[in-house]
């Protein structure tokens, strides 16, 4: 009971400091839910760099509730290929973002995952859907020709819940609530071939 109250209080106070929260760029969520990139690697296949990554998604209660009520939740994976420079900031060579829309299909009781490329898969349970969502296999990110000096190039990966893809009424709530702030840290791995 006391815990709940403090939690409400916490949320309430956060809502009061509206502006401050909106301006916060990387709020540190203390919630158990979160997104972590466990492993990521690239390999060169047919002159195309492909990304393999394992991402662990743990959705918060609010997100789960929304998902089960038919709200599509979109996860956005942002991939940046950068060339480090000793004298200046790193040079951005390419940027790619991949969106995964997770949705509950009430009639079949399945979870559907649709990628931005249009590919759709269905899962019997949320757990398997999240697992499937977290497995990025052979995602082409860059053609070899685009890269002049692949020696030092680094890949940055980040995944986050895209609140802008949510239905409009939900958006203000999503912006203000930490439950909706699902975002991983930047994961860094070398671009290998």
């Amino acid at each position: 009971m006391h815990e709940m109250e403090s939690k409400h209080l916490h949320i309430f106070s956060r809502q009061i400091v509206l502006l401050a929260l909106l301006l916060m760029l990387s709020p540190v969520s203390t919630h158990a839910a979160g997104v972590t990139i466990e492993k990521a690697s690239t390999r060169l296949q047919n002159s195309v760099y492909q990304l393999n990554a394992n991402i662990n998604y743990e959705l918060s209660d609010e997100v789960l509730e929304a998902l089960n009520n038919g709200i599509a939740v979109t996860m956005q994976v942002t991939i940046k290929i950068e060339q480090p420079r000793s004298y200046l900031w790193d040079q951005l060579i390419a940027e790619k973002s991949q969106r995964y829309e997770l949705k509950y299909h009430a009639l079949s009781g399945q979870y559907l995952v649709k990628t931005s490329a249009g590919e759709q898969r269905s899962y019997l349970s949320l757990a398997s859907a999240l697992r499937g969502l977290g497995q990025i296999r052979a995602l082409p990110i860059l053609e070899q020709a685009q890269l002049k000096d692949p020696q030092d190039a680094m890949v940055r990966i980040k995944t986050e819940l895209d609140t802008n893809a949510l239905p409009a009424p939900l958006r203000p709530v999503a912006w203000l609530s930490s439950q909706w702030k699902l975002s991983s840290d930047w994961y860094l791995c070398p671009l290998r071939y």
Partner: protein
Amino acid sequence: MSLTILKRLTSGPLSAAVLSVLLLLSLYIMSGATEDSASFNRQYVLLLISILVGLAMLVAMIAANVFRLYKRYKSGEPGSLLTSRLLVVFVIIAVIPVSIVYYFSVDFLHRGIDSWFDVRIEKALDDSLELSRSTLDSRLRDLLRSTEQLAVEVADESEASAILRLDDLRVRSGASEMTLFDGNSIVASSSAGDKIVINPNRPDEAIFSDISRGRNYAGLDAIADVGLQIRIMVRVPLIRAGLGVRSLQALYPVTARQKELADSVQETFSTYNELVYLRSPLKYSFTLILTLALLLSILSAVWAAFYTARKLVSPISDLAKGTAAVASGDYSKRLPLPANDELGFLVQSFNQMTRRIERARNDAELSRHQVDEQQAYQACVLSNLSSGVITLDADRCLQTFNEAASGILSVDLEPLYGKSIKELATLHSSLGRFVEVVWEQLDKHEQWREEITLFGASGRQILVCRGVPMTGALEASGDTLIVFEDVTTLVQAQRNAAWGEVARRLAHEIKNPLTPIQLSAERLRHKYLDTMDEESSQVLDKSTHTIVQQVEAMKEMVNAFSEYARAPQIKLEALNLNTLIDEVLDLYRDEETGLSIKLSLDPVMPHVEADEGRLRQLLHNLIKNAIEAMQEQTSHPEISIRTLCMQESKCRYVELRIDDNGPGWSCDVQSELFEPYVTSKQGGTGLGLAIVKKIVEEHGGMVTAEDRPEGGARVLIRLPVLHSDGQEEA
């Protein structure tokens, strides 16, 4: 510089109006964004942030205004109290209705949103979903059974030969796609009708693990591009070893009608569920927008209240400042015209009023200045006049006087200003005569001229006094102008000159023939006395004797005249009158006339400033005169001489009184006793008293003669005391 700009920004009506309009616009856009989710993604945040920043700016502007008002109130600036009162009224007028509208709007909004949803609709949707499922369930069971039989048929097929069998089975069973997975869940072979299946649909991994545990799968699958399909997955019976746990997946299409209905049910259910779920966020969003709108309205209203109050009050506070300035005597203040309304009219009238007052004051000041100048001019003229000038009002009180007046009267007239001239007489008894004469003359109400003789500190004074009632504009006031002049020296000089001339002529005309007459008479006598008979010689002797005697007498008289006319230089020195009297009287004490002399000398006798020889002559003249007068009629002649030091107001003088018990002055000469040629004695030259008077006047003294009440004559001489004498004695 930047501060003033900031001030102008925070107080200017334009900036606030622009800000309010922008905020309103963004609110409008934001409410639109809530409706249309697709177009406004990023903008929504930007808008929200800009609205909040705008609101914060409004709040800051209001706070700045409140602070400024508070400062003005603290410093007691006029109008600040009125501004705050107006402000409070405006704010109350604005805030209360807006708040009421807000409250009901939020309430209606919540109710409105709630009313979209109905439990029965929800139930109906749930039921329709359930119905759809159960409708499909029976078919699923049939298909599962038939697929299990098909799996038996595939059981003995090798992976290479399975493809033909799969085609056959697919056609037979009516499946759209049929796939055989080997023991490692890898596609062994697949059949999908006419299409060449490159990448057959792969089920969820969880199904594979179910299969391996011996549980077949039958379910509806939402498959990309195709839509809803029935997926059946069964374990292929193990006939030959080495093939592992194989599984057969068959995808059966649902009928177009069924698909359509199921999709519709799914879509509606999903949408409705989403809406139900979004109910509270929707309320939240709308409330947020409404709250922002409320804040915007209230803050704008408050700001407008500030602006309006200030606009309204500024001419009033200007007026207050202007009035205060006028009250403190600053008429040069002009107020800015606020507008062409009643307040503007008021301000205009105020400006006109101050302008007129200023002009009037300037005129008054100018004329006062002129009057001052004129007065100063007159005062300068008056003070430089040698004549004394005073004016008296109708009540005979002192109105104006000049320095010469004070000087001539030897009185400081300043304390007597505005007081009756009678006061002058009571304060300074020496001026009693002056006041008396003036008072008498004033009764006549016409121009007058009078000569007044005073005896004061500086001795005898002859004033020529002229009084004129004021004429012209001042006639009604009944004021009188009195001009007087000290003519003492002038009169004396005139008299001296006149008598000197008389004496000189007398001496010249008479003295010259006297000697030949005397000589001729003596020659006659000398030549014919011896030759004549006794009778004739007696006649001659008597006649010549008489002639010689008379000529002698005439010579004496002429000498006396010439002495009078001589007027030698007077030598003034301090001397004691008592001692002098004693010395002179010594000469008369031895005489055998039986004269008794009574002396009463003031023991405290100050020195007088006088010529000793002249005073001696004066005493001789007076005593001789008295003795001569008494010889004729009195058997016991008596002279009493008294000296007295007297003080009258500030004037200190010595009084010498010489009384005799003779016949006294005859009434007909009393008024001209001291004029030459006036005598009551037979054989007197009439010059004795004239000389006395001359000497007294030379010493600045005064002489009077009167009859004693008990008989006899009295001469009173007053001589001024040496000014420094008081100190000498002390």
